[in-house]
Protein backbone atom coordinates (compact mmCIF):
# COMPACT_ATOMS: atom_id res chain seq x y z
CA UNK A 1 0.00 0.00 0.00
CA UNK A 2 1.18 3.53 -0.73
CA UNK A 3 2.27 5.55 2.28
CA UNK A 4 0.67 8.65 0.85
CA UNK A 5 -1.63 8.99 -2.13
CA UNK A 6 -2.43 12.42 -3.49
CA UNK A 7 -5.47 12.49 -5.74
CA UNK A 8 -6.47 15.38 -7.96
CA UNK A 9 -5.16 17.85 -5.39
CA UNK A 10 -5.92 21.53 -5.91
CA UNK A 11 -4.80 24.14 -3.40
CA UNK A 12 -5.79 27.77 -3.39
CA UNK A 13 -4.67 30.65 -1.20
CA UNK A 14 -7.43 33.18 -1.64
CA UNK A 15 -7.88 33.66 -5.39
CA UNK A 16 -4.42 32.29 -6.07
CA UNK A 17 -4.30 28.67 -7.23
CA UNK A 18 -0.89 27.24 -6.36
CA UNK A 19 -1.53 23.58 -7.25
CA UNK A 20 -3.87 22.19 -9.91
CA UNK A 21 -5.03 18.58 -10.14
CA UNK A 22 -1.90 16.96 -8.77
CA UNK A 23 -1.75 13.17 -8.61
CA UNK A 24 1.15 11.41 -6.99
CA UNK A 25 1.98 8.63 -4.56
CA UNK A 26 4.85 7.55 -2.35
CA UNK A 27 5.68 3.89 -1.87
CA UNK A 28 7.50 2.47 1.16
CA UNK A 29 11.26 2.92 1.04
CA UNK A 30 11.62 5.07 -2.07
CA UNK A 31 13.35 8.41 -2.41
CA UNK A 32 11.24 10.89 -4.36
CA UNK A 33 12.41 14.38 -5.17
CA UNK A 34 10.21 17.27 -6.15
CA UNK A 35 11.90 19.87 -8.29
CA UNK A 36 10.38 23.02 -9.65
CA UNK A 37 10.93 26.76 -9.95
CA UNK A 38 10.04 29.22 -7.18
CA UNK A 39 6.30 29.47 -6.63
CA UNK A 40 5.64 26.13 -8.31
CA UNK A 41 3.79 24.81 -5.25
CA UNK A 42 6.48 22.47 -3.92
CA UNK A 43 6.11 23.59 -0.32
CA UNK A 44 2.31 23.66 -0.64
CA UNK A 45 2.35 20.03 -1.72
CA UNK A 46 4.40 19.11 1.35
CA UNK A 47 2.12 21.17 3.57
CA UNK A 48 -0.89 19.34 2.15
CA UNK A 49 0.73 15.99 2.87
CA UNK A 50 1.25 16.83 6.55
CA UNK A 51 -2.24 18.34 6.78
CA UNK A 52 -1.20 21.98 7.13
CA UNK A 53 -2.81 23.09 3.86
CA UNK A 54 -6.45 22.28 3.18
CA UNK A 55 -7.23 20.96 -0.30
CA UNK A 56 -9.71 23.04 -2.28
CA UNK A 57 -10.33 19.95 -4.39
CA UNK A 58 -9.14 16.38 -4.31
CA UNK A 59 -7.67 14.63 -1.32
CA UNK A 60 -4.56 13.37 0.43
CA UNK A 61 -4.80 9.81 1.71
CA UNK A 62 -2.31 8.83 4.37
CA UNK A 63 -1.81 5.19 5.30
CA UNK A 64 -3.49 4.65 8.69
CA UNK A 65 -0.94 5.02 11.49
CA UNK A 66 1.61 6.61 9.17
CA UNK A 67 4.49 8.15 11.10
CA UNK A 68 5.90 11.25 9.45
CA UNK A 69 9.26 12.84 10.19
CA UNK A 70 9.44 16.41 8.98
CA UNK A 71 12.47 18.61 8.40
CA UNK A 72 11.22 22.16 7.87
CA UNK A 73 12.63 24.57 5.32
CA UNK A 74 13.63 27.00 7.97
CA UNK A 75 13.27 26.86 11.69
CA UNK A 76 13.74 30.14 13.45
CA UNK A 77 14.39 29.89 17.17
CA UNK A 78 13.95 33.24 18.81
CA UNK A 79 17.07 34.20 20.78
CA UNK A 80 14.91 34.62 23.87
CA UNK A 81 14.04 30.91 23.83
CA UNK A 82 16.68 28.81 25.60
CA UNK A 83 16.61 25.22 24.41
CA UNK A 84 19.30 22.55 24.34
CA UNK A 85 19.69 19.96 21.60
CA UNK A 86 18.57 17.20 23.97
CA UNK A 87 15.43 19.15 24.93
CA UNK A 88 14.66 19.90 21.29
CA UNK A 89 14.89 16.19 20.52
CA UNK A 90 12.16 15.54 23.10
CA UNK A 91 9.96 18.29 21.70
CA UNK A 92 7.19 16.23 20.14
CA UNK A 93 7.80 12.72 21.48
CA UNK A 94 8.87 11.19 24.73
CA UNK A 95 12.14 9.46 24.03
CA UNK A 96 14.79 7.74 26.10
CA UNK A 97 18.28 9.29 26.20
CA UNK A 98 19.49 6.19 24.33
CA UNK A 99 17.05 6.71 21.42
CA UNK A 100 17.97 10.38 21.38
CA UNK A 101 21.68 9.55 21.17
CA UNK A 102 20.99 6.98 18.44
CA UNK A 103 19.04 9.49 16.33
CA UNK A 104 21.77 12.11 16.72
CA UNK A 105 24.30 9.45 15.71
CA UNK A 106 22.30 8.53 12.60
CA UNK A 107 22.05 12.19 11.63
CA UNK A 108 25.80 12.63 12.05
CA UNK A 109 25.87 14.90 15.12
CA UNK A 110 26.56 12.56 18.05
CA UNK A 111 28.38 14.91 20.43
CA UNK A 112 26.00 17.82 20.83
CA UNK A 113 23.15 16.97 23.21
CA UNK A 114 24.08 19.54 25.88
CA UNK A 115 24.69 22.36 23.40
CA UNK A 116 22.15 25.17 23.06
CA UNK A 117 20.39 25.22 19.68
CA UNK A 118 21.42 28.85 19.22
CA UNK A 119 25.10 27.88 19.35
CA UNK A 120 24.96 25.40 16.47
CA UNK A 121 26.38 26.03 13.02
CA UNK A 122 24.02 25.89 10.04
CA UNK A 123 25.05 22.35 9.14
CA UNK A 124 24.78 21.10 12.71
CA UNK A 125 21.38 22.74 13.07
CA UNK A 126 20.00 20.99 9.96
CA UNK A 127 21.36 17.66 11.18
CA UNK A 128 19.70 18.12 14.55
CA UNK A 129 16.44 18.83 12.71
CA UNK A 130 17.02 15.62 10.76
CA UNK A 131 17.72 13.72 13.99
CA UNK A 132 14.51 15.09 15.49
CA UNK A 133 12.57 13.96 12.43
CA UNK A 134 14.07 10.46 12.78
CA UNK A 135 13.37 10.01 16.46
CA UNK A 136 9.87 8.67 15.99
CA UNK A 137 11.15 6.03 13.53
CA UNK A 138 9.13 7.53 10.69
CA UNK A 139 7.80 5.57 7.72
CA UNK A 140 8.11 8.72 5.67
CA UNK A 141 10.66 11.48 5.96
CA UNK A 142 9.76 14.85 4.45
CA UNK A 143 12.45 17.40 3.72
CA UNK A 144 11.58 20.88 2.54
CA UNK A 145 14.67 22.49 0.99
CA UNK A 146 16.52 21.15 3.98
CA UNK A 147 19.91 22.37 2.81
CA UNK A 148 19.00 26.03 2.46
CA UNK A 149 21.77 28.10 3.96
CA UNK A 150 24.37 25.35 3.66
CA UNK A 151 27.32 25.70 1.30
CA UNK A 152 27.76 23.18 -1.50
CA UNK A 153 30.02 20.70 0.33
CA UNK A 154 27.73 21.03 3.33
CA UNK A 155 24.60 20.21 1.38
CA UNK A 156 26.31 17.39 -0.54
CA UNK A 157 27.32 15.86 2.80
CA UNK A 158 23.78 16.34 4.07
CA UNK A 159 22.29 14.45 1.12
CA UNK A 160 24.81 11.64 1.54
CA UNK A 161 23.56 11.45 5.12
CA UNK A 162 20.00 11.16 3.80
CA UNK A 163 20.98 8.17 1.66
CA UNK A 164 22.62 6.57 4.72
CA UNK A 165 19.43 7.19 6.68
CA UNK A 166 17.36 5.43 4.06
CA UNK A 167 19.77 2.51 4.01
CA UNK A 168 19.75 2.22 7.79
CA UNK A 169 16.07 2.82 8.53
CA UNK A 170 14.36 1.88 5.27
CA UNK A 171 12.01 4.86 5.49
CA UNK A 172 10.63 6.52 2.38
CA UNK A 173 11.90 10.02 1.69
CA UNK A 174 10.11 12.84 -0.06
CA UNK A 175 12.21 15.92 -0.54
CA UNK A 176 11.93 19.27 -2.16
CA UNK A 177 15.07 20.79 -3.50
CA UNK A 178 16.47 23.25 -5.93
CA UNK A 179 19.90 21.64 -5.91
CA UNK A 180 19.02 19.51 -8.87
CA UNK A 181 22.28 17.77 -9.60
CA UNK A 182 22.96 16.62 -6.03
CA UNK A 183 19.41 15.58 -5.40
CA UNK A 184 18.71 13.81 -8.63
CA UNK A 185 21.66 11.49 -8.32
CA UNK A 186 20.25 10.25 -5.02
CA UNK A 187 16.60 9.90 -6.08
CA UNK A 188 14.66 6.89 -7.29
CA UNK A 189 12.05 9.13 -8.80
CA UNK A 190 11.79 12.79 -9.66
CA UNK A 191 8.61 14.81 -9.93
CA UNK A 192 8.90 18.05 -11.79
CA UNK A 193 6.31 20.47 -10.50
CA UNK A 194 5.11 23.78 -11.83
CA UNK A 195 1.63 24.30 -10.42
CA UNK A 196 0.88 20.87 -11.85
CA UNK A 197 2.98 17.77 -12.44
CA UNK A 198 5.00 18.57 -15.59
CA UNK A 199 6.76 15.27 -15.81
CA UNK A 200 7.71 12.40 -13.60
CA UNK A 201 10.03 9.41 -13.68
CA UNK A 202 13.59 8.28 -13.06
CA UNK A 203 16.16 11.10 -12.85
CA UNK A 204 17.50 10.34 -16.33
CA UNK A 205 14.03 10.31 -17.89
CA UNK A 206 13.01 13.58 -16.25
CA UNK A 207 16.30 15.28 -17.08
CA UNK A 208 15.76 14.61 -20.78
CA UNK A 209 12.05 15.42 -20.82
CA UNK A 210 11.18 18.49 -22.92
CA UNK A 211 8.96 19.91 -20.13
CA UNK A 212 11.85 19.77 -17.73
CA UNK A 213 14.25 21.35 -20.21
CA UNK A 214 11.77 24.13 -20.80
CA UNK A 215 11.87 24.94 -17.11
CA UNK A 216 15.53 24.46 -16.30
CA UNK A 217 17.33 24.74 -19.64
CA UNK A 218 19.92 22.46 -21.19
CA UNK A 219 23.01 24.68 -21.31
CA UNK A 220 26.10 24.29 -19.17
CA UNK A 221 24.18 25.89 -16.29
CA UNK A 222 21.29 23.49 -16.82
CA UNK A 223 20.58 20.59 -14.59
CA UNK A 224 21.12 18.02 -17.33
CA UNK A 225 24.76 19.03 -17.63
CA UNK A 226 25.14 19.10 -13.90
CA UNK A 227 23.48 15.77 -13.57
CA UNK A 228 25.75 14.20 -16.13
CA UNK A 229 28.67 15.92 -14.51
CA UNK A 230 28.05 14.03 -11.32
CA UNK A 231 28.25 10.70 -13.07
CA UNK A 232 30.93 11.14 -15.72
CA UNK A 233 34.24 12.02 -14.18
CA UNK A 234 36.30 11.30 -17.26
CA UNK A 235 36.50 14.89 -18.46
CA UNK A 236 38.92 17.49 -17.12
CA UNK A 237 36.31 19.76 -15.53
CA UNK A 238 37.22 19.01 -11.93
CA UNK A 239 38.64 21.03 -9.05
CA UNK A 240 40.19 18.01 -7.40
CA UNK A 241 43.43 17.18 -9.29
CA UNK A 242 43.55 13.64 -7.94
CA UNK A 243 40.05 12.90 -9.19
CA UNK A 244 40.83 14.52 -12.55
CA UNK A 245 43.86 12.30 -12.93
CA UNK A 246 41.86 9.13 -12.51
Amino acid at each position, binding site marked *: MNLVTVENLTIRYGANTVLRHVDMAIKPGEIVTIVGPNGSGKTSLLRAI*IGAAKPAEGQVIRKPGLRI*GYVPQKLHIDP*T*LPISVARFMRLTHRVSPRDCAAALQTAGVPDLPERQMSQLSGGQFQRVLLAHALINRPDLLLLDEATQGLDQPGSAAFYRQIEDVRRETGCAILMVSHELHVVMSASDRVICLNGHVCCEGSPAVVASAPEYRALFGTGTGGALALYRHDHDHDHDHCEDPKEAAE
Partner: protein
Amino acid sequence: MLDDFMMRATLAGIGVAFAAAPLGCFVVWRRMAYFGDATAHAAILGVALSLAFQMSIFAGALVVALLMAFAVTLLSQRGYAMDTLLGVMAHSSLAFGLVAVSFLSGIRIDLMAYLFGDILAVSRSDLLVIWGGAALVVALVAWRWSQLLTGTLNEELAYASGFDPRREQLILTVSLAVTVAVAIKVVGVLLIAAMLIIPAAAARSLARSPESMAVSAAAIGTVATVVGLRAAYILDTPAGPSIVCVAAIIFAGLSLFGLSAQRRT
Protein backbone atom coordinates in the same frame (compact mmCIF):
# COMPACT_ATOMS: atom_id res chain seq x y z
CA MET B 1 3.74 41.09 61.25
CA LEU B 2 1.95 42.08 58.08
CA ASP B 3 -1.47 43.55 58.29
CA ASP B 4 -4.14 41.36 56.81
CA PHE B 5 -4.59 43.54 53.71
CA MET B 6 -0.88 43.28 53.02
CA MET B 7 -1.10 39.52 53.21
CA ARG B 8 -4.02 39.47 50.78
CA ALA B 9 -2.18 41.83 48.44
CA THR B 10 0.91 39.64 48.50
CA LEU B 11 -1.07 36.50 47.78
CA ALA B 12 -2.92 38.25 44.94
CA GLY B 13 0.34 39.43 43.40
CA ILE B 14 1.89 35.98 43.61
CA GLY B 15 -1.20 34.44 41.98
CA VAL B 16 -0.88 36.83 39.05
CA ALA B 17 2.87 36.23 38.86
CA PHE B 18 2.33 32.47 38.59
CA ALA B 19 -0.19 32.74 35.75
CA ALA B 20 1.82 35.43 33.99
CA ALA B 21 5.15 33.56 34.10
CA PRO B 22 4.58 30.76 31.56
CA LEU B 23 2.34 32.96 29.41
CA GLY B 24 4.91 35.72 29.48
CA CYS B 25 7.51 33.31 28.18
CA PHE B 26 5.34 32.47 25.16
CA VAL B 27 4.56 36.14 24.62
CA VAL B 28 8.30 36.86 24.55
CA TRP B 29 9.21 33.83 22.40
CA ARG B 30 6.47 34.53 19.88
CA ARG B 31 7.20 38.24 19.79
CA MET B 32 3.68 39.24 20.67
CA ALA B 33 4.65 41.66 23.43
CA TYR B 34 1.81 43.99 22.50
CA PHE B 35 -0.74 41.23 22.77
CA GLY B 36 -0.84 41.85 26.52
CA ASP B 37 -1.45 45.54 25.95
CA ALA B 38 -4.16 44.93 23.39
CA THR B 39 -6.16 42.55 25.59
CA ALA B 40 -5.58 44.71 28.64
CA HIS B 41 -6.77 47.87 26.95
CA ALA B 42 -9.79 46.02 25.65
CA ALA B 43 -10.53 45.12 29.25
CA ILE B 44 -11.14 48.83 30.02
CA LEU B 45 -14.02 48.66 27.57
CA GLY B 46 -15.14 45.57 29.47
CA VAL B 47 -15.02 47.45 32.75
CA ALA B 48 -17.16 50.23 31.29
CA LEU B 49 -19.70 47.75 29.93
CA SER B 50 -19.90 45.80 33.15
CA LEU B 51 -20.55 48.99 35.10
CA ALA B 52 -23.22 50.00 32.62
CA PHE B 53 -24.98 46.63 32.79
CA GLN B 54 -24.15 46.05 36.44
CA MET B 55 -22.30 42.81 35.84
CA SER B 56 -19.21 41.79 37.75
CA ILE B 57 -16.09 43.62 36.58
CA PHE B 58 -14.27 40.32 36.19
CA ALA B 59 -16.93 38.90 33.86
CA GLY B 60 -17.10 42.05 31.73
CA ALA B 61 -13.35 42.33 31.39
CA LEU B 62 -13.04 38.63 30.61
CA VAL B 63 -15.68 38.71 27.87
CA VAL B 64 -14.21 41.73 26.09
CA ALA B 65 -10.63 40.49 26.51
CA LEU B 66 -11.69 37.16 25.00
CA LEU B 67 -13.45 38.85 22.08
CA MET B 68 -10.35 40.92 21.47
CA ALA B 69 -8.09 37.90 21.64
CA PHE B 70 -10.26 35.97 19.15
CA ALA B 71 -10.39 38.95 16.80
CA VAL B 72 -6.62 39.32 16.83
CA THR B 73 -6.05 35.60 16.30
CA LEU B 74 -8.52 35.48 13.43
CA LEU B 75 -7.19 38.57 11.69
CA SER B 76 -3.56 37.49 12.08
CA GLN B 77 -4.43 34.32 10.18
CA ARG B 78 -5.85 36.51 7.41
CA GLY B 79 -2.43 37.94 6.72
CA TYR B 80 -2.26 41.19 8.69
CA ALA B 81 1.11 41.86 10.31
CA MET B 82 0.80 41.10 14.00
CA ASP B 83 2.43 44.28 15.33
CA THR B 84 0.27 46.59 13.19
CA LEU B 85 -2.85 44.68 14.11
CA LEU B 86 -2.09 44.77 17.82
CA GLY B 87 -1.21 48.45 17.66
CA VAL B 88 -4.54 49.26 16.02
CA MET B 89 -6.54 47.09 18.42
CA ALA B 90 -4.73 48.14 21.59
CA HIS B 91 -5.07 51.85 21.15
CA SER B 92 -8.49 51.95 19.59
CA SER B 93 -9.98 49.70 22.26
CA LEU B 94 -8.47 51.89 24.98
CA ALA B 95 -9.98 54.94 23.30
CA PHE B 96 -13.38 53.29 22.91
CA GLY B 97 -13.20 52.14 26.51
CA LEU B 98 -12.45 55.62 27.82
CA VAL B 99 -15.23 57.12 25.70
CA ALA B 100 -17.65 54.43 26.89
CA VAL B 101 -16.75 55.17 30.49
CA SER B 102 -17.52 58.86 29.96
CA PHE B 103 -21.11 57.97 28.99
CA LEU B 104 -21.64 56.48 32.42
CA SER B 105 -22.37 59.86 33.97
CA GLY B 106 -24.73 58.38 36.55
CA ILE B 107 -22.00 56.34 38.17
CA ARG B 108 -18.86 57.82 39.60
CA ILE B 109 -15.97 55.54 38.70
CA ASP B 110 -12.44 55.79 39.81
CA LEU B 111 -10.90 55.03 36.45
CA MET B 112 -7.44 55.29 37.96
CA ALA B 113 -8.21 52.20 40.01
CA TYR B 114 -8.63 50.19 36.80
CA LEU B 115 -5.75 51.78 34.95
CA PHE B 116 -3.28 51.26 37.78
CA GLY B 117 -4.96 48.59 39.85
CA ASP B 118 -5.62 48.61 43.56
CA ILE B 119 -3.89 45.60 44.96
CA LEU B 120 -4.28 46.83 48.55
CA ALA B 121 -8.07 46.67 48.21
CA VAL B 122 -8.11 43.01 47.20
CA SER B 123 -10.85 41.18 49.09
CA ARG B 124 -11.13 37.53 50.01
CA SER B 125 -13.45 36.85 47.07
CA ASP B 126 -11.07 38.69 44.72
CA LEU B 127 -8.34 36.43 45.98
CA LEU B 128 -10.49 33.43 45.15
CA VAL B 129 -11.04 34.70 41.58
CA ILE B 130 -7.34 35.45 41.13
CA TRP B 131 -6.13 32.08 42.38
CA GLY B 132 -8.90 30.23 40.57
CA GLY B 133 -8.00 31.96 37.31
CA ALA B 134 -4.28 31.47 37.86
CA ALA B 135 -4.73 27.76 38.62
CA LEU B 136 -6.82 27.36 35.47
CA VAL B 137 -4.22 29.12 33.33
CA VAL B 138 -1.26 27.22 34.79
CA ALA B 139 -3.10 23.90 34.38
CA LEU B 140 -4.02 24.70 30.75
CA VAL B 141 -0.51 25.74 29.82
CA ALA B 142 1.11 22.79 31.63
CA TRP B 143 -1.27 20.38 29.89
CA ARG B 144 -0.50 21.73 26.41
CA TRP B 145 3.13 22.70 27.11
CA SER B 146 4.82 20.50 24.50
CA GLN B 147 2.32 21.36 21.81
CA LEU B 148 2.49 25.07 22.56
CA LEU B 149 6.26 24.94 22.43
CA THR B 150 6.29 23.03 19.13
CA GLY B 151 3.77 25.41 17.58
CA THR B 152 5.88 28.34 18.74
CA LEU B 153 9.01 26.90 17.10
CA ASN B 154 7.47 25.82 13.81
CA GLU B 155 3.90 25.36 12.62
CA GLU B 156 4.72 22.65 10.09
CA LEU B 157 6.49 20.64 12.76
CA ALA B 158 3.29 20.82 14.77
CA TYR B 159 1.14 19.63 11.85
CA ALA B 160 3.59 16.81 11.09
CA SER B 161 3.29 15.65 14.70
CA GLY B 162 -0.46 15.46 14.25
CA PHE B 163 -1.89 18.51 15.97
CA ASP B 164 -3.20 21.86 14.82
CA PRO B 165 -1.02 24.79 15.96
CA ARG B 166 -3.94 27.20 15.50
CA ARG B 167 -5.85 25.39 18.25
CA GLU B 168 -2.81 25.73 20.49
CA GLN B 169 -2.61 29.44 19.75
CA LEU B 170 -6.25 29.71 20.77
CA ILE B 171 -5.43 28.09 24.12
CA LEU B 172 -2.68 30.64 24.60
CA THR B 173 -5.02 33.46 23.66
CA VAL B 174 -7.77 32.35 26.04
CA SER B 175 -5.23 31.98 28.85
CA LEU B 176 -4.00 35.50 28.21
CA ALA B 177 -7.52 36.88 28.33
CA VAL B 178 -8.19 35.09 31.64
CA THR B 179 -4.92 36.37 33.11
CA VAL B 180 -5.66 39.93 32.06
CA ALA B 181 -9.15 39.75 33.53
CA VAL B 182 -7.97 38.44 36.91
CA ALA B 183 -4.99 40.78 37.05
CA ILE B 184 -6.90 44.03 36.47
CA LYS B 185 -7.49 44.55 40.16
CA VAL B 186 -3.91 43.78 41.08
CA VAL B 187 -1.65 45.77 38.78
CA GLY B 188 -4.22 47.50 36.60
CA VAL B 189 -4.63 47.61 32.87
CA LEU B 190 -1.54 49.65 32.11
CA LEU B 191 0.84 47.38 33.98
CA ILE B 192 -0.48 43.91 33.15
CA ALA B 193 1.72 43.71 30.09
CA ALA B 194 4.68 44.57 32.29
CA MET B 195 3.93 41.65 34.62
CA LEU B 196 3.73 39.37 31.58
CA ILE B 197 6.91 40.43 29.89
CA ILE B 198 9.40 41.72 32.47
CA PRO B 199 9.74 38.58 34.65
CA ALA B 200 9.97 36.36 31.54
CA ALA B 201 12.56 38.62 29.94
CA ALA B 202 14.54 38.77 33.19
CA ALA B 203 14.44 34.96 33.45
CA ARG B 204 16.06 34.58 30.03
CA SER B 205 19.59 35.20 31.30
CA LEU B 206 19.17 32.55 34.02
CA ALA B 207 17.54 29.82 31.97
CA ARG B 208 19.00 26.96 29.94
CA SER B 209 15.66 25.37 29.01
CA PRO B 210 12.14 26.59 28.26
CA GLU B 211 10.84 25.02 31.46
CA SER B 212 13.45 26.62 33.69
CA MET B 213 12.69 29.97 32.06
CA ALA B 214 9.01 29.67 33.02
CA VAL B 215 9.85 28.62 36.59
CA SER B 216 12.44 31.39 36.97
CA ALA B 217 9.90 33.91 35.64
CA ALA B 218 7.43 32.80 38.32
CA ALA B 219 10.12 33.13 40.99
CA ILE B 220 11.11 36.59 39.77
CA GLY B 221 7.45 37.67 39.68
CA THR B 222 7.01 36.44 43.25
CA VAL B 223 10.11 38.25 44.51
CA ALA B 224 9.01 41.43 42.71
CA THR B 225 5.58 41.19 44.37
CA VAL B 226 6.91 40.67 47.88
CA VAL B 227 9.68 43.25 47.66
CA GLY B 228 7.56 45.74 45.70
CA LEU B 229 4.71 45.62 48.25
CA ARG B 230 7.12 45.96 51.12
CA ALA B 231 8.78 48.94 49.46
CA ALA B 232 5.40 50.51 48.75
CA TYR B 233 4.48 50.09 52.42
CA ILE B 234 7.71 51.66 53.68
CA LEU B 235 8.08 54.40 51.06
CA ASP B 236 4.35 55.09 50.74
CA THR B 237 4.41 54.59 46.96
CA PRO B 238 1.62 53.15 44.77
CA ALA B 239 1.65 49.36 45.15
CA GLY B 240 1.15 48.08 41.56
CA PRO B 241 3.76 50.35 39.97
CA SER B 242 6.20 49.57 42.81
CA ILE B 243 5.94 45.85 42.00
CA VAL B 244 6.67 46.54 38.34
CA CYS B 245 9.60 48.79 39.28
CA VAL B 246 11.17 46.01 41.33
CA ALA B 247 10.67 43.56 38.45
CA ALA B 248 12.34 46.05 36.10
CA ILE B 249 15.29 46.46 38.48
CA ILE B 250 15.66 42.66 38.66
CA PHE B 251 15.58 42.57 34.86
CA ALA B 252 18.31 45.21 34.61
CA GLY B 253 20.46 43.47 37.22
CA LEU B 254 20.16 40.03 35.63
CA SER B 255 20.79 41.41 32.14
CA LEU B 256 23.99 43.12 33.28
CA PHE B 257 25.00 39.94 35.09
CA GLY B 258 24.27 37.90 31.94
CA LEU B 259 26.30 40.28 29.78
CA SER B 260 29.31 40.18 32.05
CA ALA B 261 29.09 36.38 32.35
CA GLN B 262 29.03 36.18 28.55
CA ARG B 263 32.12 38.35 28.32
CA ARG B 264 34.03 36.19 30.78
CA THR B 265 33.44 32.93 28.92
